[in-house]
Protein backbone atom coordinates (compact mmCIF):
# COMPACT_ATOMS: atom_id res chain seq x y z
CA UNK A 1 0.00 0.00 0.00
CA UNK A 2 2.66 2.49 1.01
CA UNK A 3 4.87 1.72 -1.98
CA UNK A 4 1.83 1.99 -4.17
CA UNK A 5 0.94 5.39 -2.77
CA UNK A 6 4.53 6.44 -3.19
CA UNK A 7 4.52 5.53 -6.85
CA UNK A 8 1.15 7.09 -7.49
CA UNK A 9 2.34 10.28 -5.84
CA UNK A 10 5.58 10.32 -7.77
CA UNK A 11 4.12 9.24 -11.09
CA UNK A 12 5.75 12.27 -12.69
CA UNK A 13 9.20 10.73 -12.11
CA UNK A 14 8.42 8.26 -14.86
CA UNK A 15 8.31 11.05 -17.40
CA UNK A 16 11.92 11.90 -16.55
CA UNK A 17 12.91 8.25 -16.54
CA UNK A 18 11.25 7.87 -19.94
CA UNK A 19 13.00 10.95 -21.26
CA UNK A 20 16.35 9.67 -20.03
CA UNK A 21 15.91 6.19 -21.51
CA UNK A 22 14.89 7.58 -24.85
CA UNK A 23 17.80 10.01 -24.81
CA UNK A 24 20.22 7.24 -23.89
CA UNK A 25 19.02 5.09 -26.76
CA UNK A 26 19.44 7.99 -29.17
CA UNK A 27 22.84 8.95 -27.81
CA UNK A 28 24.14 5.40 -28.06
CA UNK A 29 22.86 5.13 -31.61
CA UNK A 30 24.46 8.30 -32.89
CA UNK A 31 27.42 8.07 -30.51
CA UNK A 32 29.90 10.70 -29.33
CA UNK A 33 29.04 14.31 -28.70
CA UNK A 34 25.77 14.09 -30.57
CA UNK A 35 24.01 13.22 -27.31
CA UNK A 36 24.52 16.66 -25.76
CA UNK A 37 23.41 18.40 -28.93
CA UNK A 38 20.21 16.39 -28.83
CA UNK A 39 19.57 17.52 -25.27
CA UNK A 40 20.03 21.20 -26.00
CA UNK A 41 17.75 21.01 -29.03
CA UNK A 42 15.19 19.18 -26.97
CA UNK A 43 15.39 21.86 -24.27
CA UNK A 44 14.78 24.59 -26.85
CA UNK A 45 11.71 22.97 -28.30
CA UNK A 46 10.29 21.56 -25.08
CA UNK A 47 10.28 25.08 -23.62
CA UNK A 48 7.30 26.10 -25.74
CA UNK A 49 5.33 22.99 -24.89
CA UNK A 50 6.01 23.62 -21.21
CA UNK A 51 4.68 27.17 -21.37
CA UNK A 52 1.29 26.12 -22.73
CA UNK A 53 1.38 22.88 -20.75
CA UNK A 54 1.43 24.80 -17.47
CA UNK A 55 -1.67 26.78 -18.45
CA UNK A 56 -3.42 23.65 -19.61
CA UNK A 57 -2.44 21.94 -16.35
CA UNK A 58 -4.22 24.52 -14.23
CA UNK A 59 -7.32 24.23 -16.42
CA UNK A 60 -7.38 20.44 -16.33
CA UNK A 61 -6.75 20.44 -12.58
CA UNK A 62 -10.00 22.31 -11.97
CA UNK A 63 -11.82 19.07 -12.65
CA UNK A 64 -13.37 16.77 -15.24
CA UNK A 65 -14.63 18.49 -18.39
CA UNK A 66 -12.29 21.42 -18.04
CA UNK A 67 -9.85 21.69 -20.91
CA UNK A 68 -8.68 24.59 -23.05
CA UNK A 69 -8.91 23.81 -26.78
CA UNK A 70 -8.26 27.40 -27.83
CA UNK A 71 -4.54 27.27 -27.08
CA UNK A 72 -3.36 26.70 -30.70
CA UNK A 73 -5.52 29.52 -32.06
CA UNK A 74 -4.32 31.85 -29.32
CA UNK A 75 -0.68 31.04 -30.12
CA UNK A 76 -1.16 31.94 -33.79
CA UNK A 77 -3.23 35.01 -32.98
CA UNK A 78 -0.80 36.41 -30.43
CA UNK A 79 2.19 35.69 -32.67
CA UNK A 80 0.62 37.40 -35.68
CA UNK A 81 -0.47 40.47 -33.72
CA UNK A 82 2.88 40.88 -32.01
CA UNK A 83 4.87 40.50 -35.24
CA UNK A 84 2.74 42.99 -37.09
CA UNK A 85 2.86 45.60 -34.33
CA UNK A 86 6.60 45.29 -33.76
CA UNK A 87 7.33 45.12 -37.48
CA UNK A 88 10.85 43.99 -36.79
CA UNK A 89 11.74 46.94 -34.63
CA UNK A 90 13.48 46.50 -31.31
CA UNK A 91 12.00 49.69 -29.98
CA UNK A 92 8.51 48.28 -30.31
CA UNK A 93 9.31 45.19 -28.25
CA UNK A 94 7.52 46.26 -25.06
CA UNK A 95 4.44 47.35 -26.99
CA UNK A 96 4.43 44.15 -29.00
CA UNK A 97 4.69 42.13 -25.83
CA UNK A 98 1.86 44.10 -24.24
CA UNK A 99 -0.28 43.57 -27.34
CA UNK A 100 0.42 39.87 -27.25
CA UNK A 101 -0.62 39.69 -23.60
CA UNK A 102 -3.73 41.70 -24.40
CA UNK A 103 -4.63 39.07 -27.03
CA UNK A 104 -4.35 36.40 -24.36
CA UNK A 105 -6.44 38.39 -21.94
CA UNK A 106 -9.20 38.90 -24.50
CA UNK A 107 -9.31 35.23 -25.45
CA UNK A 108 -9.34 34.15 -21.80
CA UNK A 109 -12.12 36.56 -20.97
CA UNK A 110 -14.11 35.48 -23.98
CA UNK A 111 -13.74 31.81 -23.10
CA UNK A 112 -14.89 32.41 -19.56
CA UNK A 113 -17.86 34.47 -20.67
CA UNK A 114 -18.97 31.65 -22.98
CA UNK A 115 -18.62 29.10 -20.20
CA UNK A 116 -20.35 31.21 -17.58
CA UNK A 117 -23.06 33.02 -19.48
CA UNK A 118 -23.90 30.49 -22.17
CA UNK A 119 -23.32 27.65 -19.70
CA UNK A 120 -21.65 25.54 -22.37
CA UNK A 121 -19.17 22.84 -21.42
CA UNK A 122 -15.64 24.29 -21.51
CA UNK A 123 -14.64 21.93 -24.31
CA UNK A 124 -17.21 23.36 -26.70
CA UNK A 125 -16.79 26.91 -25.44
CA UNK A 126 -13.04 26.95 -26.04
CA UNK A 127 -13.52 25.13 -29.34
CA UNK A 128 -15.99 27.66 -30.71
CA UNK A 129 -13.91 30.58 -29.53
CA UNK A 130 -10.85 29.01 -31.14
CA UNK A 131 -12.68 29.15 -34.51
CA UNK A 132 -13.17 32.87 -34.11
CA UNK A 133 -9.67 33.52 -32.83
CA UNK A 134 -8.07 31.51 -35.61
CA UNK A 135 -10.07 33.36 -38.24
CA UNK A 136 -9.06 36.67 -36.73
CA UNK A 137 -5.45 35.54 -36.84
CA UNK A 138 -5.76 34.42 -40.47
CA UNK A 139 -7.48 37.59 -41.59
CA UNK A 140 -5.13 39.81 -39.64
CA UNK A 141 -1.94 38.03 -40.50
CA UNK A 142 -2.58 37.18 -44.15
CA UNK A 143 0.62 37.19 -46.15
CA UNK A 144 2.51 38.01 -43.01
CA UNK A 145 6.22 37.69 -43.70
CA UNK A 146 7.56 39.90 -40.97
CA UNK A 147 10.77 39.02 -39.25
CA UNK A 148 10.77 39.35 -35.46
CA UNK A 149 12.77 42.18 -33.91
CA UNK A 150 16.41 41.10 -33.80
CA UNK A 151 16.49 41.44 -30.04
CA UNK A 152 13.61 39.01 -29.61
CA UNK A 153 15.10 36.56 -32.08
CA UNK A 154 18.43 36.74 -30.28
CA UNK A 155 16.85 36.23 -26.89
CA UNK A 156 14.74 33.31 -28.07
CA UNK A 157 17.72 31.50 -29.57
CA UNK A 158 20.50 32.64 -27.20
CA UNK A 159 22.59 30.13 -25.31
CA UNK A 160 24.45 30.39 -22.06
CA UNK A 161 27.25 27.82 -21.70
CA UNK A 162 25.52 25.88 -24.42
CA UNK A 163 22.17 25.89 -22.65
CA UNK A 164 19.28 27.78 -24.27
CA UNK A 165 18.61 30.92 -22.22
CA UNK A 166 14.89 30.68 -22.84
CA UNK A 167 14.86 27.19 -21.37
CA UNK A 168 16.57 28.48 -18.23
CA UNK A 169 14.02 31.26 -17.93
CA UNK A 170 11.13 28.86 -18.35
CA UNK A 171 12.63 26.40 -15.87
CA UNK A 172 12.65 29.25 -13.37
CA UNK A 173 9.11 30.14 -14.42
CA UNK A 174 8.07 26.53 -13.81
CA UNK A 175 9.54 26.74 -10.32
CA UNK A 176 7.51 29.88 -9.69
CA UNK A 177 4.32 28.24 -11.00
CA UNK A 178 4.99 25.23 -8.83
CA UNK A 179 5.09 27.56 -5.83
CA UNK A 180 1.90 29.23 -7.05
CA UNK A 181 0.25 25.84 -7.27
CA UNK A 182 1.28 24.63 -3.84
CA UNK A 183 1.81 27.70 -1.73
CA UNK A 184 -0.78 30.29 -2.73
CA UNK A 185 -4.47 30.66 -2.02
CA UNK A 186 -5.10 30.48 -5.74
CA UNK A 187 -3.23 27.21 -6.23
CA UNK A 188 -4.83 25.58 -3.23
CA UNK A 189 -8.24 26.65 -4.43
CA UNK A 190 -7.62 25.13 -7.87
CA UNK A 191 -6.60 21.84 -6.27
CA UNK A 192 -9.63 21.88 -3.99
CA UNK A 193 -12.07 22.64 -6.80
CA UNK A 194 -10.61 19.84 -8.88
CA UNK A 195 -11.18 17.31 -6.14
CA UNK A 196 -14.70 18.36 -5.35
CA UNK A 197 -16.20 21.57 -6.63
CA UNK A 198 -19.15 21.47 -4.27
CA UNK A 199 -17.04 20.82 -1.21
CA UNK A 200 -14.71 23.63 -2.29
CA UNK A 201 -17.60 26.06 -2.46
CA UNK A 202 -18.86 24.91 0.91
CA UNK A 203 -15.36 25.40 2.33
CA UNK A 204 -15.55 29.07 1.43
CA UNK A 205 -13.80 29.11 -1.96
CA UNK A 206 -15.11 31.44 -4.62
CA UNK A 207 -15.24 28.79 -7.33
CA UNK A 208 -16.28 31.05 -10.19
CA UNK A 209 -13.52 33.57 -9.59
CA UNK A 210 -10.89 30.82 -9.51
CA UNK A 211 -12.20 29.35 -12.76
CA UNK A 212 -12.05 32.78 -14.32
CA UNK A 213 -8.41 33.26 -13.29
CA UNK A 214 -7.56 29.81 -14.57
CA UNK A 215 -8.93 30.28 -18.08
CA UNK A 216 -7.32 33.71 -18.32
CA UNK A 217 -3.99 32.30 -17.12
CA UNK A 218 -4.11 29.56 -19.74
CA UNK A 219 -4.84 32.04 -22.52
CA UNK A 220 -2.09 34.40 -21.31
CA UNK A 221 0.46 31.60 -21.36
CA UNK A 222 -0.65 30.56 -24.84
CA UNK A 223 -0.17 34.16 -25.94
CA UNK A 224 3.29 34.21 -24.35
CA UNK A 225 4.13 31.03 -26.20
CA UNK A 226 3.01 32.59 -29.48
CA UNK A 227 5.14 35.65 -28.83
CA UNK A 228 8.30 33.72 -28.00
CA UNK A 229 7.73 31.10 -30.67
CA UNK A 230 7.57 33.70 -33.42
CA UNK A 231 10.83 35.11 -32.13
CA UNK A 232 12.36 31.65 -32.07
CA UNK A 233 11.25 30.55 -35.52
CA UNK A 234 11.85 33.83 -37.33
CA UNK A 235 8.29 35.05 -37.59
CA UNK A 236 4.70 34.05 -37.01
CA UNK A 237 2.95 31.50 -39.14
CA UNK A 238 -0.72 30.75 -39.04
CA UNK A 239 -0.47 27.09 -38.27
CA UNK A 240 2.35 27.38 -35.77
CA UNK A 241 -0.05 26.63 -32.90
CA UNK A 242 -1.46 23.49 -34.46
CA UNK A 243 0.76 20.88 -32.83
CA UNK A 244 0.28 22.40 -29.37
CA UNK A 245 -3.30 21.18 -28.96
CA UNK A 246 -2.35 17.58 -28.42
CA UNK A 247 1.06 18.45 -26.98
CA UNK A 248 -0.35 20.65 -24.23
CA UNK A 249 -2.78 17.96 -23.11
CA UNK A 250 -0.27 15.15 -23.55
CA UNK A 251 2.45 16.70 -21.38
CA UNK A 252 -0.07 17.36 -18.64
CA UNK A 253 -1.31 13.76 -18.66
CA UNK A 254 2.14 12.17 -19.03
CA UNK A 255 3.54 14.56 -16.43
CA UNK A 256 1.46 12.98 -13.70
CA UNK A 257 -1.41 15.44 -13.47
CA UNK A 258 -4.72 13.70 -12.88
CA UNK A 259 -7.33 14.15 -15.60
CA UNK A 260 -9.91 13.62 -12.89
CA UNK A 261 -8.69 16.87 -11.35
CA UNK A 262 -7.28 17.98 -8.03
CA UNK A 263 -3.77 16.63 -8.48
CA UNK A 264 -1.21 18.54 -10.49
CA UNK A 265 2.50 18.49 -11.03
CA UNK A 266 4.65 21.14 -12.61
CA UNK A 267 8.06 19.38 -12.85
CA UNK A 268 6.34 16.47 -14.58
CA UNK A 269 5.43 18.80 -17.44
CA UNK A 270 9.11 19.41 -18.12
CA UNK A 271 9.84 15.70 -18.01
CA UNK A 272 6.96 14.93 -20.31
CA UNK A 273 7.84 17.68 -22.78
CA UNK A 274 11.44 16.42 -22.95
CA UNK A 275 10.20 12.86 -23.33
CA UNK A 276 7.86 13.76 -26.18
CA UNK A 277 10.52 15.65 -28.09
CA UNK A 278 13.28 13.13 -27.46
CA UNK A 279 10.98 10.33 -28.56
CA UNK A 280 10.44 12.00 -31.90
CA UNK A 281 14.16 12.64 -32.19
CA UNK A 282 14.93 9.02 -31.43
CA UNK A 283 12.46 7.75 -33.99
CA UNK A 284 13.92 10.17 -36.51
CA UNK A 285 17.46 9.00 -35.90
CA UNK A 286 16.32 5.40 -36.21
CA UNK A 287 14.97 6.39 -39.58
CA UNK A 288 11.38 5.56 -38.69
CA UNK A 289 8.81 7.00 -41.06
CA UNK A 290 6.49 9.87 -40.18
CA UNK A 291 3.50 7.55 -40.03
CA UNK A 292 5.02 5.29 -37.37
CA UNK A 293 6.07 8.35 -35.41
CA UNK A 294 2.51 9.65 -35.31
CA UNK A 295 1.11 6.25 -34.39
CA UNK A 296 3.56 5.80 -31.53
CA UNK A 297 2.89 9.29 -30.19
CA UNK A 298 -0.83 8.62 -30.17
CA UNK A 299 -0.52 5.17 -28.66
CA UNK A 300 1.73 6.39 -25.86
CA UNK A 301 -0.84 9.00 -24.86
CA UNK A 302 -3.65 6.44 -24.91
CA UNK A 303 -1.52 3.99 -22.95
CA UNK A 304 -0.57 6.55 -20.30
CA UNK A 305 -4.16 7.67 -19.81
CA UNK A 306 -5.33 4.06 -19.65
CA UNK A 307 -2.82 3.26 -16.92
CA UNK A 308 -3.38 6.51 -15.06
CA UNK A 309 -7.16 6.35 -15.48
CA UNK A 310 -9.35 4.85 -12.85
CA UNK A 311 -8.10 7.18 -10.12
CA UNK A 312 -11.55 8.58 -9.69
CA UNK A 313 -12.66 10.07 -6.42
CA UNK A 314 -14.09 7.41 -4.13
CA UNK A 315 -17.82 7.95 -4.31
Amino acid sequence: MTSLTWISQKAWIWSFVGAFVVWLATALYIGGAGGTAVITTALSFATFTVIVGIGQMFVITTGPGNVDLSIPATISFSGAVAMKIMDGSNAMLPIGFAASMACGLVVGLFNYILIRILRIPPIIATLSSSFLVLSTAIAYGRGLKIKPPPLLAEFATARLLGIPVLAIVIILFAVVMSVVLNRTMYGRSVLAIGQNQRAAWLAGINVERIRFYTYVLSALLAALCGFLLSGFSGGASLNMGQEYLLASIAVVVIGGTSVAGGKANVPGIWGAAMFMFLLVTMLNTFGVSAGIRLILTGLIIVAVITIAGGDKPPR
Partner: protein
Amino acid sequence: MVDRLTSPRFLRAVLPAASFAILLIAIFYLKPRTMSYFGLNLMLQYTVPIALATIAQMFIITVNDLDLSIGPFVGLTACIGATWLADTPLLGILALAGCVAAYAALGALIHWRNLPSIVVTLGMSFVWLGIAVLILPTPGGTAPGWVKWLMGVKTPVVPFPIVATVVIGLVVHLLLMRSSYGAVLRGAGGNPRAIGRAGWSLLKTKMVMFGAAGFFGVLSGLSLIGLTSAADAHIADRYTLYAIAGVILGGGEFVGGRVSPIGAVIGAMTLTLTGSFLTFLKISPDWQIGAQGGILIIVLALRALINRREGLV
Protein backbone atom coordinates in the same frame (compact mmCIF):
# COMPACT_ATOMS: atom_id res chain seq x y z
CA MET B 1 -51.95 27.66 -29.94
CA VAL B 2 -49.67 30.63 -29.38
CA ASP B 3 -48.52 28.94 -26.20
CA ARG B 4 -47.55 25.91 -28.15
CA LEU B 5 -45.67 27.90 -30.76
CA THR B 6 -43.64 29.77 -28.17
CA SER B 7 -43.02 26.80 -25.89
CA PRO B 8 -39.31 26.19 -25.30
CA ARG B 9 -39.58 22.65 -26.61
CA PHE B 10 -41.08 23.79 -29.89
CA LEU B 11 -38.59 26.62 -30.32
CA ARG B 12 -35.69 24.29 -29.65
CA ALA B 13 -36.96 21.79 -32.19
CA VAL B 14 -37.50 24.46 -34.83
CA LEU B 15 -34.21 26.28 -34.36
CA PRO B 16 -32.07 24.04 -36.65
CA ALA B 17 -34.54 24.04 -39.52
CA ALA B 18 -35.14 27.76 -39.12
CA SER B 19 -31.43 28.59 -39.24
CA PHE B 20 -31.10 26.49 -42.38
CA ALA B 21 -34.11 28.10 -44.05
CA ILE B 22 -32.96 31.61 -43.21
CA LEU B 23 -29.52 30.92 -44.60
CA LEU B 24 -30.95 29.40 -47.78
CA ILE B 25 -33.30 32.33 -48.33
CA ALA B 26 -30.44 34.75 -47.80
CA ILE B 27 -28.39 32.92 -50.42
CA PHE B 28 -31.26 32.86 -52.91
CA TYR B 29 -31.69 36.56 -52.33
CA LEU B 30 -28.02 37.31 -52.88
CA LYS B 31 -27.63 35.00 -55.91
CA PRO B 32 -30.98 34.11 -57.43
CA ARG B 33 -29.15 31.87 -59.90
CA THR B 34 -28.38 29.39 -57.12
CA MET B 35 -32.07 28.57 -56.98
CA SER B 36 -31.67 25.79 -59.51
CA TYR B 37 -30.91 22.11 -59.70
CA PHE B 38 -27.35 22.81 -60.70
CA GLY B 39 -26.81 25.59 -58.21
CA LEU B 40 -28.04 23.57 -55.24
CA ASN B 41 -26.09 20.56 -56.39
CA LEU B 42 -22.90 22.57 -56.46
CA MET B 43 -23.47 24.31 -53.15
CA LEU B 44 -24.44 21.20 -51.26
CA GLN B 45 -22.04 18.76 -52.95
CA TYR B 46 -19.99 18.12 -49.82
CA THR B 47 -22.96 17.76 -47.54
CA VAL B 48 -23.02 13.98 -47.80
CA PRO B 49 -19.61 13.22 -46.25
CA ILE B 50 -20.07 15.98 -43.67
CA ALA B 51 -23.53 14.70 -42.75
CA LEU B 52 -22.17 11.18 -42.33
CA ALA B 53 -19.35 12.41 -40.09
CA THR B 54 -21.85 14.47 -38.11
CA ILE B 55 -23.99 11.38 -37.58
CA ALA B 56 -20.90 9.53 -36.37
CA GLN B 57 -20.16 12.27 -33.87
CA MET B 58 -23.81 12.28 -32.83
CA PHE B 59 -23.65 8.61 -31.83
CA ILE B 60 -20.71 9.38 -29.55
CA ILE B 61 -22.37 12.44 -28.06
CA THR B 62 -25.51 10.38 -27.36
CA VAL B 63 -23.59 8.41 -24.74
CA ASN B 64 -22.06 11.58 -23.23
CA ASP B 65 -18.66 11.32 -24.90
CA LEU B 66 -16.93 13.45 -27.50
CA ASP B 67 -14.83 12.27 -30.45
CA LEU B 68 -11.93 14.53 -31.36
CA SER B 69 -10.55 12.01 -33.85
CA ILE B 70 -13.39 11.68 -36.31
CA GLY B 71 -11.70 13.96 -38.87
CA PRO B 72 -8.43 12.02 -39.12
CA PHE B 73 -10.44 8.81 -38.98
CA VAL B 74 -12.47 9.86 -42.02
CA GLY B 75 -9.16 10.75 -43.66
CA LEU B 76 -7.84 7.27 -42.92
CA THR B 77 -10.87 5.52 -44.35
CA ALA B 78 -10.64 7.77 -47.41
CA CYS B 79 -7.03 6.66 -47.87
CA ILE B 80 -7.95 3.00 -47.49
CA GLY B 81 -10.81 3.51 -49.92
CA ALA B 82 -8.63 5.14 -52.55
CA THR B 83 -5.91 2.48 -52.32
CA TRP B 84 -6.67 -0.98 -50.99
CA LEU B 85 -10.39 -0.94 -51.65
CA ALA B 86 -9.76 0.09 -55.25
CA ASP B 87 -6.86 -2.31 -55.85
CA THR B 88 -7.65 -5.36 -53.72
CA PRO B 89 -11.28 -5.01 -52.65
CA LEU B 90 -11.17 -7.88 -50.14
CA LEU B 91 -8.24 -6.37 -48.23
CA GLY B 92 -9.98 -3.01 -48.36
CA ILE B 93 -13.20 -4.36 -46.92
CA LEU B 94 -11.31 -6.19 -44.17
CA ALA B 95 -9.34 -3.05 -43.31
CA LEU B 96 -12.50 -0.95 -43.13
CA ALA B 97 -14.19 -3.58 -40.96
CA GLY B 98 -11.11 -3.46 -38.75
CA CYS B 99 -11.55 0.31 -38.43
CA VAL B 100 -15.13 -0.14 -37.21
CA ALA B 101 -14.01 -2.82 -34.76
CA ALA B 102 -11.26 -0.51 -33.48
CA TYR B 103 -13.88 2.13 -32.74
CA ALA B 104 -16.04 -0.34 -30.84
CA ALA B 105 -12.93 -1.39 -28.89
CA LEU B 106 -12.25 2.26 -28.02
CA GLY B 107 -15.77 2.50 -26.62
CA ALA B 108 -15.10 -0.58 -24.51
CA LEU B 109 -11.79 0.86 -23.26
CA ILE B 110 -13.38 4.17 -22.34
CA HIS B 111 -16.15 2.40 -20.46
CA TRP B 112 -13.89 -0.13 -18.78
CA ARG B 113 -11.35 2.34 -17.44
CA ASN B 114 -13.81 5.21 -17.10
CA LEU B 115 -11.52 7.38 -19.25
CA PRO B 116 -12.11 10.91 -20.48
CA SER B 117 -13.04 10.36 -24.11
CA ILE B 118 -11.48 13.58 -25.30
CA VAL B 119 -7.95 12.61 -24.26
CA VAL B 120 -8.30 9.12 -25.68
CA THR B 121 -9.69 10.29 -29.00
CA LEU B 122 -7.16 13.09 -29.22
CA GLY B 123 -4.43 10.45 -28.91
CA MET B 124 -6.17 8.22 -31.42
CA SER B 125 -6.36 11.06 -33.93
CA PHE B 126 -2.58 10.75 -34.23
CA VAL B 127 -2.83 7.01 -34.66
CA TRP B 128 -5.38 7.32 -37.47
CA LEU B 129 -3.30 10.01 -39.14
CA GLY B 130 -0.15 7.92 -38.81
CA ILE B 131 -1.76 4.86 -40.39
CA ALA B 132 -3.17 7.02 -43.18
CA VAL B 133 0.26 8.47 -43.89
CA LEU B 134 1.71 4.96 -44.01
CA ILE B 135 -0.92 3.80 -46.47
CA LEU B 136 -0.83 6.88 -48.65
CA PRO B 137 2.33 8.95 -48.03
CA THR B 138 1.50 11.50 -50.73
CA PRO B 139 -1.91 12.67 -51.95
CA GLY B 140 -3.19 10.38 -54.65
CA GLY B 141 -4.93 7.07 -55.20
CA THR B 142 -8.18 6.57 -57.01
CA ALA B 143 -11.61 5.97 -55.67
CA PRO B 144 -13.22 2.69 -56.71
CA GLY B 145 -15.46 3.16 -59.74
CA TRP B 146 -18.67 2.21 -57.96
CA VAL B 147 -18.12 4.85 -55.28
CA LYS B 148 -17.57 7.52 -57.91
CA TRP B 149 -20.62 6.31 -59.75
CA LEU B 150 -22.75 6.40 -56.64
CA MET B 151 -21.70 9.89 -55.69
CA GLY B 152 -22.29 11.10 -59.23
CA VAL B 153 -25.85 9.82 -59.51
CA LYS B 154 -28.19 12.35 -61.07
CA THR B 155 -31.53 12.16 -59.31
CA PRO B 156 -34.59 13.68 -60.95
CA VAL B 157 -35.91 17.07 -59.75
CA VAL B 158 -34.06 17.22 -56.44
CA PRO B 159 -30.26 17.12 -56.57
CA PHE B 160 -28.52 14.00 -55.28
CA PRO B 161 -26.81 15.54 -52.21
CA ILE B 162 -30.18 16.62 -50.82
CA VAL B 163 -31.80 13.26 -51.53
CA ALA B 164 -28.86 11.36 -50.03
CA THR B 165 -28.70 13.57 -46.94
CA VAL B 166 -32.41 13.22 -46.30
CA VAL B 167 -32.17 9.44 -46.73
CA ILE B 168 -29.25 9.29 -44.27
CA GLY B 169 -31.17 11.34 -41.75
CA LEU B 170 -34.28 9.17 -42.08
CA VAL B 171 -32.42 5.87 -41.86
CA VAL B 172 -30.58 6.92 -38.70
CA HIS B 173 -33.80 8.32 -37.31
CA LEU B 174 -35.40 4.91 -37.77
CA LEU B 175 -32.46 3.13 -36.17
CA LEU B 176 -31.88 5.39 -33.20
CA MET B 177 -35.20 7.07 -32.55
CA ARG B 178 -37.73 4.46 -33.64
CA SER B 179 -36.15 1.08 -32.88
CA SER B 180 -36.65 -0.56 -29.52
CA TYR B 181 -32.93 -0.96 -28.82
CA GLY B 182 -32.42 2.64 -29.92
CA ALA B 183 -34.49 3.67 -26.90
CA VAL B 184 -32.08 1.78 -24.65
CA LEU B 185 -29.08 3.38 -26.36
CA ARG B 186 -30.46 6.88 -25.86
CA GLY B 187 -31.47 5.99 -22.33
CA ALA B 188 -27.84 5.10 -21.62
CA GLY B 189 -27.05 8.74 -22.30
CA GLY B 190 -30.01 10.07 -20.33
CA ASN B 191 -29.68 8.10 -17.13
CA PRO B 192 -27.05 5.35 -17.30
CA ARG B 193 -27.87 4.16 -13.80
CA ALA B 194 -31.50 3.56 -14.69
CA ILE B 195 -30.45 1.57 -17.74
CA GLY B 196 -28.04 -0.47 -15.61
CA ARG B 197 -30.79 -1.05 -13.03
CA ALA B 198 -33.13 -2.28 -15.72
CA GLY B 199 -30.56 -5.00 -16.43
CA TRP B 200 -28.90 -3.71 -19.61
CA SER B 201 -25.16 -3.85 -20.23
CA LEU B 202 -23.68 -0.35 -20.36
CA LEU B 203 -20.50 -1.77 -21.87
CA LYS B 204 -22.52 -3.07 -24.78
CA THR B 205 -24.35 0.20 -25.35
CA LYS B 206 -21.05 2.06 -25.43
CA MET B 207 -19.51 -0.44 -27.85
CA VAL B 208 -22.54 -0.33 -30.11
CA MET B 209 -22.51 3.46 -30.23
CA PHE B 210 -18.78 3.72 -30.89
CA GLY B 211 -19.03 0.95 -33.47
CA ALA B 212 -21.85 2.79 -35.21
CA ALA B 213 -19.74 5.95 -35.16
CA GLY B 214 -16.90 4.02 -36.79
CA PHE B 215 -19.24 2.65 -39.44
CA PHE B 216 -20.54 6.08 -40.38
CA GLY B 217 -16.98 7.41 -40.32
CA VAL B 218 -16.13 4.79 -42.95
CA LEU B 219 -19.13 5.82 -45.05
CA SER B 220 -18.09 9.44 -44.74
CA GLY B 221 -14.56 8.67 -45.98
CA LEU B 222 -15.86 6.67 -48.94
CA SER B 223 -18.38 9.30 -49.97
CA LEU B 224 -15.68 11.93 -49.73
CA ILE B 225 -13.36 10.16 -52.19
CA GLY B 226 -16.37 9.57 -54.41
CA LEU B 227 -16.43 13.34 -54.83
CA THR B 228 -12.71 14.10 -54.91
CA SER B 229 -11.74 10.78 -56.56
CA ALA B 230 -8.31 11.01 -54.90
CA ALA B 231 -7.38 10.90 -51.21
CA ASP B 232 -4.93 12.43 -48.78
CA ALA B 233 -4.26 11.69 -45.11
CA HIS B 234 -5.22 15.25 -44.20
CA ILE B 235 -8.25 15.38 -46.47
CA ALA B 236 -10.77 15.48 -43.62
CA ASP B 237 -8.91 17.11 -40.73
CA ARG B 238 -11.55 19.81 -40.44
CA TYR B 239 -14.33 17.25 -40.13
CA THR B 240 -13.77 16.92 -36.39
CA LEU B 241 -14.92 20.47 -35.92
CA TYR B 242 -17.61 20.25 -38.59
CA ALA B 243 -19.07 17.18 -36.98
CA ILE B 244 -19.27 18.68 -33.50
CA ALA B 245 -20.71 21.90 -34.88
CA GLY B 246 -23.20 19.96 -37.00
CA VAL B 247 -24.56 18.03 -34.03
CA ILE B 248 -24.94 21.19 -31.99
CA LEU B 249 -26.49 23.21 -34.82
CA GLY B 250 -28.90 20.32 -35.21
CA GLY B 251 -30.16 20.74 -31.68
CA GLY B 252 -28.15 18.01 -29.96
CA GLU B 253 -27.19 18.47 -26.32
CA PHE B 254 -23.70 17.64 -25.07
CA VAL B 255 -24.95 15.45 -22.29
CA GLY B 256 -28.12 13.62 -21.47
CA GLY B 257 -28.69 11.65 -24.66
CA ARG B 258 -30.82 14.37 -26.25
CA VAL B 259 -29.90 14.20 -29.93
CA SER B 260 -31.69 14.38 -33.23
CA PRO B 261 -30.46 12.64 -36.41
CA ILE B 262 -32.68 14.77 -38.62
CA GLY B 263 -31.41 17.87 -36.86
CA ALA B 264 -27.83 16.69 -37.26
CA VAL B 265 -28.07 16.37 -41.03
CA ILE B 266 -29.79 19.74 -41.22
CA GLY B 267 -26.91 21.08 -39.13
CA ALA B 268 -24.44 19.57 -41.60
CA MET B 269 -26.28 21.21 -44.52
CA THR B 270 -26.34 24.56 -42.72
CA LEU B 271 -22.62 24.30 -42.15
CA THR B 272 -21.96 23.54 -45.82
CA LEU B 273 -24.11 26.46 -46.88
CA THR B 274 -22.26 28.90 -44.63
CA GLY B 275 -19.26 28.57 -46.91
CA SER B 276 -21.23 29.56 -50.02
CA PHE B 277 -23.05 32.27 -48.13
CA LEU B 278 -19.83 33.92 -47.02
CA THR B 279 -18.41 33.71 -50.51
CA PHE B 280 -21.51 35.37 -51.94
CA LEU B 281 -21.25 38.07 -49.31
CA LYS B 282 -17.70 38.56 -50.63
CA ILE B 283 -16.32 37.87 -47.19
CA SER B 284 -12.79 36.62 -47.49
CA PRO B 285 -12.30 32.89 -47.00
CA ASP B 286 -10.18 33.81 -43.99
CA TRP B 287 -13.36 34.24 -42.01
CA GLN B 288 -14.84 30.89 -43.00
CA ILE B 289 -14.00 29.05 -39.78
CA GLY B 290 -14.57 32.14 -37.73
CA ALA B 291 -18.06 32.51 -39.13
CA GLN B 292 -18.74 28.88 -38.31
CA GLY B 293 -17.57 29.49 -34.76
CA GLY B 294 -19.73 32.60 -34.65
CA ILE B 295 -22.80 30.74 -35.85
CA LEU B 296 -22.13 28.05 -33.28
CA ILE B 297 -21.95 30.64 -30.53
CA ILE B 298 -25.09 32.42 -31.73
CA VAL B 299 -27.06 29.18 -31.84
CA LEU B 300 -25.82 28.23 -28.39
CA ALA B 301 -26.71 31.69 -27.13
CA LEU B 302 -30.22 31.38 -28.55
CA ARG B 303 -30.57 28.01 -26.95
CA ALA B 304 -29.33 29.30 -23.60
CA LEU B 305 -31.96 32.02 -23.91
CA ILE B 306 -34.71 29.50 -24.64
CA ASN B 307 -33.59 27.29 -21.78
CA ARG B 308 -33.49 30.21 -19.39
CA ARG B 309 -37.05 31.05 -20.28
CA GLU B 310 -37.96 27.45 -19.65
CA GLY B 311 -36.43 27.79 -16.19
CA LEU B 312 -38.74 30.70 -15.50
CA VAL B 313 -41.90 28.91 -16.57
